[in-house]
């Protein structure tokens, strides 16, 4: 009995990490962007542009993963640039500009993707880390994954460390809290925000690249299916804390895989409801753990969504 439980559990957990990885990348990117006070609702669009660019590059190089990821990152960053110009240099409304970016990304990726619908890639083989992958339960789940999943661990560590421990992180947080004060003591607020927006774009692009090159190695129109929106929501409900963001992402990934298995077993619940389950579960859990208003206020970038134009 117990053995058969593990037989089912391990594939679910392995799948969880894969399903969560796009959210980890997109979420961490958006978290950094929002920490500087800019909310970019274009994550979904940037992911799609990243996905189609990565897929095209991978097809052209016969499945080269590194080229695919780089193309995705570059395309995502390029896609975020007009958003940056509109909101940071011209002071346009961030919410409206972000929505426009998502709609633009949806259309552009569908247009470019037309020619790639019939292609498929071979996917990426997992790499077992010697010794570590032999640990019961944890080994196959954490240490027998594809390289992009490992990369997501490293990215999480880097982002958390930079934000908490380095001067760069302190400056990012300071700009998000009070761009006026940061400007008055001499920080180039707009340039710093551009950097954060481009980073967020690149990360969203990598998230999309993972989807189209590794997770389901083919191109389907609108293949992100709302994951960009979940990433935005995760950032907010995780109260801008990287560790909680990871928790939320894995929760989402876990419930996604779980409900797929449940559908496979033929549970008597409409499949549409089951498909909605990960979205509902993630939001509910994160809302519940983030009820403390004091904590929320301490982590919320106070200038979030407000344009800042340096002047006299």
């Amino acid at each position: 009995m117990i053995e058969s439980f593990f037989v089912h559990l391990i594939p679910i957990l392995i799948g969880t990490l894969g399903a969560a990885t796009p959210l980890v990348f997109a979420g961490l990117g958006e978290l950094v962007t929002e920490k500087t006070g800019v909310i970019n609702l274009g994550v979904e669009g940037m992911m799609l542009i990243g996905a189609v660019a990565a897929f095209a590059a991978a097809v052209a190089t016969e499945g080269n993963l590194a080229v695919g990821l780089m193309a995705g990152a570059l395309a995502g960053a390029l896609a975020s640039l007009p958003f940056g110009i509109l909101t940071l240099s011209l002071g346009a409304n961030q919410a409206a500009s972000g929505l426009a970016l998502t709609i633009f990304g949806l259309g552009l990726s569908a247009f470019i993707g037309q020619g790639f619908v019939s292609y498929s890639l071979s996917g990426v083989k997992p790499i077992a880390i010697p010794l570590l992958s032999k640990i019961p339960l944890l080994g196959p789940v954490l240490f027998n994954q594809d390289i992009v999943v490992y990369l997501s661990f490293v990215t999480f560590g880097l982002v958390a460390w930079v934000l908490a421990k380095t001067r760069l992180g302190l400056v990012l947080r300071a700009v998000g809290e009070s761009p006026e004060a940061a400007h008055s003591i001499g920080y180039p607020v707009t340039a710093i925000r551009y950097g954060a927006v481009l980073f967020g774009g690149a990360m969203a692009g990598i998230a999309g690249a993972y989807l189209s090159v590794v997770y389901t190695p083919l191109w389907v129109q609108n293949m992100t299916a709302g994951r960009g929106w979940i990433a935005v929501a995760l950032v907010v409900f995780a109260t801008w804390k990287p560790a909680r963001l990871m928790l939320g992402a894995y929760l989402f990934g876990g419930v996604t895989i779980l409900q797929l298995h449940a559908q496979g077993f033929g549970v008597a619940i409409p499949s549409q409801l089951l498909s909605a389950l990960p979205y509902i579960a993630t939001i509910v859990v994160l809302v519940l753990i983030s009820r403390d208003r004091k904590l929320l206020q301490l982590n919320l970038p106070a200038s979030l969504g407000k344009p800042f134009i340096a002047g006299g």
Partner: protein
Amino acid sequence: MTPMTNDSLAELAGKAASQTPVEPRLSLQHITKRYPGVVANDDVSLSVMPGEIHAVLGENGAGKSTLMKIIYGTVQADGGQLMWNGRETVVANPAAARALGIGMVFQHFSLFETLTVTENIALALDAPFDLKALAVRVKSVSEKYGLPLDPYRLVHSLSVGERQRVEIVRCLLQDPQLLILDEPTSVLTPQAVRKLFETLRQLASEGVSILYISHKLHEIKDLCDSATVMRGGRVTGHANPKQETTGSLARMMIGRDLPVCQSPDYTGNNNCALEVRNLSATSIDPFGVSLQDISLRVQRGEVVGIAGISGNGQAELLAVLSGEQTVGNDAVLLDDVPVGKLDAGQRRDLGLAFVPEERLGRGAVPAMSLANNAMLTAHRQAGMKHYGLLNYAATREFAKRCIERFDVRCNGAQSAARSLSGGNLQKFIVGREIMQSPKAMIVAQPTWGVDVGASAFLRQTLIDLSRSGVGVLVISEELDELFEICDRIAVLSEGKLSPAMPKEQTNAESIGLLMAGKAEKEVA
């Protein structure tokens, strides 16, 4: 040290290139800065010697802050020269200013609320990033200059005085040669001001030059070696403040004598206009201060003042009094009627007038005309509505009368609220409330950012209003103002209100102690 006359300063500045002795640390020559529609600085010159405490004196809008921003590099001048230690220098940005050895303590602090003291200071330093080592330095420097600070506290939990210490320590850690302080005492208790002055004198004795921006004459007389007076963007005089009277300094600053308020006796009935009974309320803001067992009576015919530094429950008390936050019905009484559960509109219906601290945004809608702004509260008046529809002609008429009666300088009732200066908009808002014949009126920071002339007018207006039989409650950070207009003064500190004392029985000193949170018996 001996104060120097301005002529000898100018001479020194002229010889500086060729001779070695003391040359000015900073010398500004013919600085000009224009903004669309205004000349903020017009041919401004001044110089500061090493170890000199130099005052820049002027009203709001005289151009002091613009001049300091030019020195600190946040604003670039259109014309003129800046000489630093005898050499012509262009200060491109604040980082360049800091590299030269210029430190600035801002009027509205440039601190980050959710970061610690050390993190805030680290942001302004170019030293290698090591928060632990920096915390040790912060502690030792803050103790050396009598500015005790806990390096690991989050800034939002600090009092205003402590926040200012953070700003000063931040400057001191950069070993400044020139320290600029912009209205540093506007938020301090008299005791904290004395402490600050000791620190500044200690710095000056170590050779640091200090530029002290203020409009408070007695402070400048007390602290500064020399003064440059500005009015309307121009220098109107140089003086040695120790040899001037506050009267002569005031004439240089505003061009005429300081106006004085008249408080006639009140002869009408003393019924209670506004009462607060055992009010306790939890703040909605997680960083706010909760009110604890507050009781207060404001009678018809008197002005009661609440002193204290903002952030001690002022915002919370105002919200409860105006009706933005409702409480137990018997906790607030207007004209002996319990109104604690009524909202702001219902309380206004019963004769409560309220002038908030934030003029643009809460007192008035910035983009709307004065007539429409008048309508927002005056629609309750007879003739303003016909069967629920607004009578625009009547509101325009109302606004016109208000503009005339309260001497509001503007382009008529159709001008947008945001086009008015602070003083004129405040006159309009106060006037709008007075013309609705309230029973009680609450005013927060009535003259904040208002020039001397309009301040005097507003203060006299509030006294006259009370003498017509209205209970007036003023919440202000300016002690001088409270002593000028109030009959009784209470202090709000850490959410608790001291008993309101007749002003003849108290003084700035004991009010200051209460503001700092000490119980009254400790004072005696």
